[in-house]
């Protein structure tokens, strides 16, 4: 009966147990690893079960439905929870290696698990106010992770992240309060009916405010400043977790609310979303082309890739949702593994700045191969996974006659290719600028390599055999739209 709550309760319990064992780091790490593994197993089982029997529902506290707090484990939510569990495992695995130079701190593991609990809670909840609460759980853990290094640049990043994100969540809370005042409901299914009955002049500003707030959480065009200002100050495994999950929660909420709960929302919203998507793509990729720090390049790419996902959502069709779900899953994995590769580059060359590193292809050819495969997946060169995602988006945009948006999406891909090739040429191809530099010999990087190559294999297999994931994304989109084949 509590089974669908497992993706939240397992990391929550692990986080609390990690707090209780803060004084014994070895035991804490053990609990953390066990908790992450249990989470991966339970979310895989839940994912498979939901595939078989359809969405599972739990209403807490025995209250009747429009008032009780409902959790729904459906196809989309469990798939994203599975990705979160996978990423948590990779991050925890990295803590065993020396790839992260920062000293371990007793608050790291509780915060990591707390973050995943918040993210999974947001994926599972079927209640607007609860969505806010889980956003805040994730936000607080994210703030703790940003600040726990304690360096001045980390505190600076945490302050900027705090102010911009908190204003985003406050806007979301305002939207929730106004929607409650207008409809008297918070539960998703009750809300969908109630909002459809509302006067259009009242409903449109509410939808607009809600979308605006969620766009701030998803780091879309005018409100993305918090992401590139803060991400690069994080330790690499945490950065991988952040870029795989945090903005995706905003994306998921947009997809859930405007692809499922509030359908059909006014067409004006989807038009606006399309323009915002295109502007996010352009702004993100230009930022990436400008920067030379690998982490910052990848952070800006996140914004432009989020633009692609938003463009797919703006299509407001089942095919569009399929593309959005495919792209979200693909991007979480690719971006996280690229960041882990960048962390290994840092470990071998001593710098994140491309002007100061180089010569890696000669000394570590396999890292070069892994980077090239992942970079081409991100750019969308066939037959890699990004190609299928972009193909789905572009085909749907063309079939709806959005030629300008399509042209922008294709152009942005070219600039993405440019900035990925910049990393390749500078970090791998050119000789190291300091001829005396030698990569550190005695470091334990095996767990890090296992994490990177595992993720890269998943990404590659998506590229080689995309039918499975496309079929799955189509089924998830069908469940969202309510027209199950």
């Amino acid at each position, binding site marked *: *009966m*509590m089974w669908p*709550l497992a993706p939240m309760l397992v990391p929550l319990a692990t986080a609390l*147990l990690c707090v*209780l064992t803060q004084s014994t780091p070895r035991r804490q790490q053990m609990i953390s690893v066990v908790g992450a593994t249990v989470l991966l197993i339970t979310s895989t089982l839940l994912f498979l079960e939901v595939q078989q029997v359809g969405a599972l529902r739990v*209403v*807490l*506290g025995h209250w009747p439905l429009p008032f009780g707090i409902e959790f729904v484990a459906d196809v989309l939510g469990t798939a994203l929870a599975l990705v979160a569990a996978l990423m948590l495992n990779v991050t925890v695995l990295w803590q065993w290696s020396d790839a992260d130079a920062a000293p371990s701190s007793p608050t790291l593991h509780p915060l990591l698990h707390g973050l995943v609990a918040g993210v999974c809670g947001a994926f599972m909840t079927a209640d607007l106010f609860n969505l806010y609460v889980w956003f805040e759980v994730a936000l607080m853990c994210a703030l703790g992770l940003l600040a726990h290094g304690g360096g001045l640049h980390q505190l600076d990043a945490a302050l900027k992240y705090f102010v911009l994100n908190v204003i985003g969540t406050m806007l979301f809370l305002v939207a929730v309060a106004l929607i409650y005042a207008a409809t008297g409901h918070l539960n998703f299914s009750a809300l969908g009916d109630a909002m459809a009955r509302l006067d259009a002049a009242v409903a449109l500003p509410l939808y607009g405010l809600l979308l605006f707030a969620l766009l701030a959480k998803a780091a879309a065009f005018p409100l993305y400043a918090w992401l590139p200002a803060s991400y690069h100050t994080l330790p690499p495994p945490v950065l991988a977790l952040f870029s795989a999950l945090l903005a995706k929660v905003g994306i998921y909420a947009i997809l859930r609310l405007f692809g499922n709960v509030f359908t059909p929302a006014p067409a004006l919203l989807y038009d606006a979303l399309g323009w915002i998507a295109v502007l996010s793509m352009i702004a993100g990729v230009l930022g990436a082309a400008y920067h030379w720090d690998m982490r910052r390049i990848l952070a800006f790419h996140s914004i432009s890739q989020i633009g692609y996902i938003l463009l797919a959502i703006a299509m407001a069709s089942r095919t569009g949702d399929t593309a959005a779900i495919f792209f979200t899953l693909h991007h979480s994995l690719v971006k996280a593994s690229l960041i882990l590769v960048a962390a290994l580059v840092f470990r071998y060359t001593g710098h994140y700045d491309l002007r100061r590193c180089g010569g890696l292809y000669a000394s570590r050819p396999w890292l070069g191969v892994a980077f090239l495969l992942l970079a081409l997946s991100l750019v969308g060169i066939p037959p890699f996974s990004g190609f299928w995602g972009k193909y789905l988006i572009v085909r749907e945009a063309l079939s709806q006659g959005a030629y300008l948006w399509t042209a922008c999406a294709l152009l942005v891909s070219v600039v993405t290719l440019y900035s990925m090739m910049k990393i390749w040429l500078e970090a791998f191809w050119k000789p190291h600028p300091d001829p005396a530099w030698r990569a550190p010999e005695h470091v334990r990087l095996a767990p890090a390599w296992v994490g990177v190559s595992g993720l890269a294999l998943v990404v590659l297999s998506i590229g080689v055999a995309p039918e499975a994931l496309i079929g799955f994304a189509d089924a998830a989109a069908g469940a969202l739209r309510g027209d199950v084949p």
Partner: protein
Amino acid sequence: MTSRPLLAEVFVRGLYIVLLVASIWVLLRGHNAPGGGFIGGLLAVAASAAYALTFNATSALQRLPLRPAALAAIGVLLSAASGVPALWSDLPFLTHLWVELPLGIADLPLSTVMVFDFGVYLCVWGALGGYCLGLLRALEEAP
């Protein structure tokens, strides 16, 4: 030479106990009247803060039953655990149950809500008390 606030020390030693008892009273009262775990926890934090202001933060931390973070974590675990008994009666998680325990003279009403509230109390005391005392200690150690 620092001056010791002797009157305050004598007074606060008693006040600490009184505030803690009052916080428990507010916690239990909250079942059917205004009060509850959150307000009770805040009163307990007030007790710790008063102690820290008169003596020092370290001794106030030692007076907490556990490390603040552990206290808060146990509180959350306790609150979550209060939802588990409902599962044995085939009710959803966090459905609360009430029983009357006959003691001969009178019936003692018990409920899982009390456990939940006590968890909230511990969580507030641990989290907020730890925050407050940690801040005071940082101020004391600052030059």
